């Protein structure tokens, strides 16, 4: 089976500094893959390379067999590679329904219509409701996003991404900053991700990673330390060393 997302020998240098060093990762379709690593390991650079914010110094990225190494950001989204942000990037003045509605309109290619009302197409309404129901946002769909509790905003961050109809979803620390009491909602939200969407999760919260992922890659100092099942990673002495401090220079 063709890989959903694959990087080959991906390298990114900033002057003399190698931020991403020969990273090759393969995600099978439908995978729940986690990327972990200490601060400064190069997780953000990698996500920026994948989404097209940065261009690689060398190496390739392919999405379902299509080389997207040089594709623009909006092209990658159109091809089905969508991300969430570590810090919420939402439309504060929109309601969740309007936010999701816009993303669904885009997915259906209706976003260039200038003289048709948004939502006049039933598919947009249905698609929006699908997403809002999935992430338990129906009850707040008509409230301005800025007024929502933080946990709901985090969920909306994921919901917008799903509304874009991704084949591969990059989740950048979805639980970052969520208070303990609202963490369960995020867990439920992750569990509700469609099974056919391939997920790459970047996360600090080990509890979340081990509950969610079926494969884990460990990134240290820009390069891959190892890749394996959660059990393998948990038992690896090198990973323990990295996380328990003596190699914490990354």
């Amino acid at each position: 089976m063709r890989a959903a997302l694959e990087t080959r020998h991906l390298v990114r240098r900033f002057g003399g500094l190698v931020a991403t060093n020969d990273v090759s990762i393969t995600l099978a379709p439908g995978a729940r893959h986690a990327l972990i690593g200490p601060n400064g390991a190069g997780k953000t650079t990698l996500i920026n390379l994948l989404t097209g914010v940065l261009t690689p110094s060398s190496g390739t990225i392919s999405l379902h067999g299509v080389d997207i190494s040089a594709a623009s950001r909006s092209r990658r989204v159109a091809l089905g590679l969508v991300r969430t942000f570590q810090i919420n990037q939402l439309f504060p003045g929109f309601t969740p329904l309007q936010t999701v509605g816009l993303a669904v309109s885009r997915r259906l290619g209706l976003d260039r219509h200038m003289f048709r009302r948004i939502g006049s197409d039933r598919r947009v309404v249905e698609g929006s409701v699908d997403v809002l129901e999935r992430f338990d946002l129906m009850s707040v769909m008509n409230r301005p996003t800025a007024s929502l509790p933080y946990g709901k905003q985090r969920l909306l961050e994921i919901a917008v991404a799903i509304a874009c109809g991704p084949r591969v979803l990059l989740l950048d620390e979805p639980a970052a900053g969520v208070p303990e009491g609202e963490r369960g909602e995020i867990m439920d939200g992750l569990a509700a991700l469609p099974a056919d969407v391939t997920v790459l999760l970047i996360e600090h919260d080990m509890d979340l990673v081990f509950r969610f992922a079926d494969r884990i890659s460990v990134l240290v100092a820009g390069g891959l330390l190892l890749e394996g099942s959660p059990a393998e990673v948990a038992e690896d002495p090198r990973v323990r060393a990295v996380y328990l401090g003596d190699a914490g220079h990354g």
Partner: protein
Amino acid sequence: MSAREQNIAAASQALAETSRVKPAEIVFWLAALASFFLLPEQHLLLSEVLITGLFALSLDLVLGYGGIVSLGHAAFFGFGCYAAGLATKHGVTDPLLGLALVAVLTGALGFATSFLVLRGSDLTRIMVTLSVGVLMGELANRMAWLTGGADGLQGVAPGLLLGRFEFDIFGQVAYAYTLCVAFVLFVLARRFVHSPFGWSVRAVKENALRTSAIGIPVNRRLVVVYTLAAAYAGIAGGLLTQTTQFASLDLFSFHRSADLLLILIIGGTGYLYGGLIGALVFKLIQDAIANVTPQYWEFWIGLLLVSFVLIGRERIVGLPGLVWRRLRGRA
């Protein structure tokens, strides 16, 4: 009805709600229509107010929806004025054809300059828009052989409207014409802002990063809305020339752009009526001040701008309502 069907109905209704025509809107346009019949001696003044309102509406598209702070929107208005005047003088005497031509030309100018506005920060945008304004004024000044220079463009004589109506000195035809054009343009703008495209432009203003992350090309959206707004401003300018049969360099001045911002702030941004209401209120304030102290009008504009920012629009606009509630509470 299943829960899902209920949800879909609710969502559908909520999405339709934002673009539903509200009673106040019908009242507004009926009032505008009534003014034509009830205030025959004010037609010239009302035309001017409406044209200014349309001009402000075009800025609202850029500023209120697109989030671009422009200090040179008068460039498009002035360009439209001269384009309409010159078209009329050089053979395109049909008013509607002239307006269409003006819309295309001003739109082209807006399209060409939009690429400068895409770049950089608010500061560079302000600088660029201001520069384009100065540049257009300077061009009109230098090309006196074409524009009449400091004397203004005189002797603009538009032909019969629809081949039947002659522009009269009381402004009756002019006001009817302006009213119709403004209404049509308003309806189109209203459809535009409630369309998926319009929402994506608002999205850019709310959060450009997220907008591009859901796959919407941010720059292309801004180019389109800037071009559209330029065309609207040009049409407003064209209407002014056709109805007053004159164009002057003053149209390009910085004061025009600044007044326009004030109008929009008075009326409010992001709901399209702000420009129209603001233009009317602005005219009333202008007349009131002119009655008390005809000179130093500029000072009062400045004071208004400063107060609006320091006190806040909500508090100033909400004041009459607040007083009313207090009075009622006491009674």
